[in-house]
């Protein structure tokens, strides 16, 4: 295996609030290889965005408590100084956010914001040269007539165009890694498909490694190489795309897969869902955090399972569930497909 580009080990991010400490990410570990697309999935509050933002230090604040290790090509980022971190942001790791409507500063022209990103890192590049880079980038992400549109204000762009422009800005300095935090969530479905196709093309053409954060398994299925499933601040399952989709080991993953609507199956009367709500991060249940919502709970569950390989044939497929693999393969069959039974 090639040396990983990004290596996250035992990352813990907590926030001190008035009502107590919230552990938003707890012991998260994963690697991203060069050119790989890693998807992080989970519902709201599972810690996926916090994890991603912590990689480039965006969660640093007087109220946050961050521990663990994030190494980019061997360089530690968690305790890096502000200046060191600033050089990583934008230059080595680009980031794209969920809502393209609010992610651009409304008072500056799109081009100027891209130029600003370029010149923040490359003092030797003049304004006009940076502008040429911006035009080129806008062109490469599919903005029509980029030399003209570069002088538009963000509100003159459509949502899809803004997200394209965000990606152009994040990639202007050709970083090796792109973190895309729910890049398609705020867009309508046809535009979503275009943005995903764009990400896929960039990954293919530039060998761009990508961390794609999403709650949409449909998105994952289209672009990811590997998948990380998070629940209540922890990684509960990790594996290749095929392993996660065809041999999922954690009941929470079954639930996510079971609640996908699929065009190739009969439409169910009611969309299946995972009953209950995610636990409060301030009062997690003892042991497995998914226990209160899991119909397959048994007497070992009050003890937290480690994130371990439980399948002899797939040493890189990790999960946090005490059930035996054979048992799991039986239990996850709900009406002929993978799913999570309704609670008894």
């Amino acid at each position, binding site marked *: 295996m090639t040396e990983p580009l990004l290596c996250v080990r035992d990352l813990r991010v907590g926030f001190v609030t008035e009502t107590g400490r919230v552990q938003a990410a707890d012991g998260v570990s994963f690697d991203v290889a060069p050119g790989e697309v890693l998807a992080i999935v989970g519902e709201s509050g599972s810690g996926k965005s916090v994890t991603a933002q912590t990689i*480039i230090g965006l969660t640093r604040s*007087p109220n946050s408590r961050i521990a663990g290790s994030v190494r980019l090509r061997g360089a530690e980022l968690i305790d890096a100084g502000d200046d060191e971190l600033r050089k990583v*942001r934008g230059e080595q790791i*680009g980031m794209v956010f969920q809502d393209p409507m*609010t992610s651009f500063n409304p008072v500056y022209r799109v081009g100027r914001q891209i130029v*600003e990103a370029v010149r*923040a890192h490359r003092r030797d590049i003049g304004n006009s040269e940076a502008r040429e880079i911006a035009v080129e980038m806008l062109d490469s992400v599919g903005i029509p007539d980029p030399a003209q549109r570069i002088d538009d204000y963000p509100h003159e762009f459509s949502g899809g165009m803004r997200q394209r422009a965000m990606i152009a800005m994040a990639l202007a300095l050709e970083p090796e890694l792109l973190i895309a935090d729910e890049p398609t969530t705020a867009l309508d479905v046809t535009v979503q498909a275009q943005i995903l196709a764009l990400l896929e093309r960039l990954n293919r053409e530039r060998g761009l490694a990508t961390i794609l954060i999403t709650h949409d398994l449909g998105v994952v299925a289209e672009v990811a190489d590997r998948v990380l499933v998070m629940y209540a601040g922890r990684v509960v399952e990790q594996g290749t795309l095929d392993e996660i989709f065809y041999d999922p080991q954690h009941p929470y993953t079954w639930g996510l897969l079971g609640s996908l609507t699929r065009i190739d199956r009969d439409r169910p009367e009611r969309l299946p869902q995972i009953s209950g709500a995610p636990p409060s991060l301030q009062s997690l249940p003892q042991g497995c955090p998914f226990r209160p919502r899991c119909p397959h709970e048994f007497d070992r569950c009050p003890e937290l399972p480690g994130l371990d390989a439980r399948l002899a044939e797939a040493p890189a497929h990790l999960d946090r569930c005490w059930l035996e693999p054979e048992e799991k393969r039986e239990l996850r069959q709900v009406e002929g497909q993978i799913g999570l039974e309704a609670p008894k």
Partner: protein
Amino acid sequence: MARFVVRRLIGMVAVLFAVSVLTFLVFNVIPNSDPAQRMAGRAAKPELIATINEEWGFEDPLPQQYLTMMGKVFSGDLVSYKGRENVEERIVEGIPATVSLCLGAAVIWLFFGILFGYLSAVRAGGLLDRGLTVLAVTGISMPVFWLAAIFLNYLTYKTEIFPSGEYVEFTTDPLEWANHLILPWITLAILYVGFYSRVLRSSMLDVMNEDYVRTARAKGLSERRVMSRHVMRNSLIPIVTLFGLDFGALLGGAILIEAIFSLNGVGQYAYESLQSLDLPPIMAIVLYGAFFVVLLNTLVDIAYAYLDPRIRLGTSAQ
């Protein structure tokens, strides 16, 4: 832009008309405000009053009187009841003092208001922020007339550090001009420094939570640049609004300060005219003040379009 200006001009005429009618009516329902009687003196003979009424047209129907007065306002020969001096000339005489007072105070309060607001927001929750908050609230809470009296007492009468106000023409002696205005400037500015720093602080804290500020950090800008380029500009909009209103209102006469420091500006003239219920100067000063309020608000709207390109003047209504 042209449409915008025309719309604003029409609006301005409407505002000035409404203000003048109100002022005129209020004056006419105030008890004891019969100008003829006041001009004739305490124990005046009825014939004298009748002559005055005849001469000034005080017996005419109100709309007629109003029109006569407005005609005089616009032809520049409005004469005060008391002393029969030309009102416009007096106002023009007072303008340099009033404008000097307002401009100087505005420079001080904008500078310190923005500086303190910025420091407060950047260090929100810290010691500096708390200290500045206390200062700001203290500044807002101190009444101007009280503060002026304290300053005058300690810095002028007891220690003679500063002169006691009184306006010196800039053209006569710029140093004395500033020296005489320093106390009025500071007194006037303190209140606004408090207000502006509080407003800027809260508006900056709002903007700091915006997604585009996170984007700015994520692309590797320095914290200073994030603050000055991405937070400040968007936070200044409420400050611009406030400034337009405050500065416009003050140009119409900072009545208390001018009276206490005897600056002989428009405000002091307004104060004297109010005391003697002298309608012509009151009317003229009110119109002059309203004019500046409307004018400054128009400038504020133009500034908005500059600060926020989403606002397009003239076309925004379509």
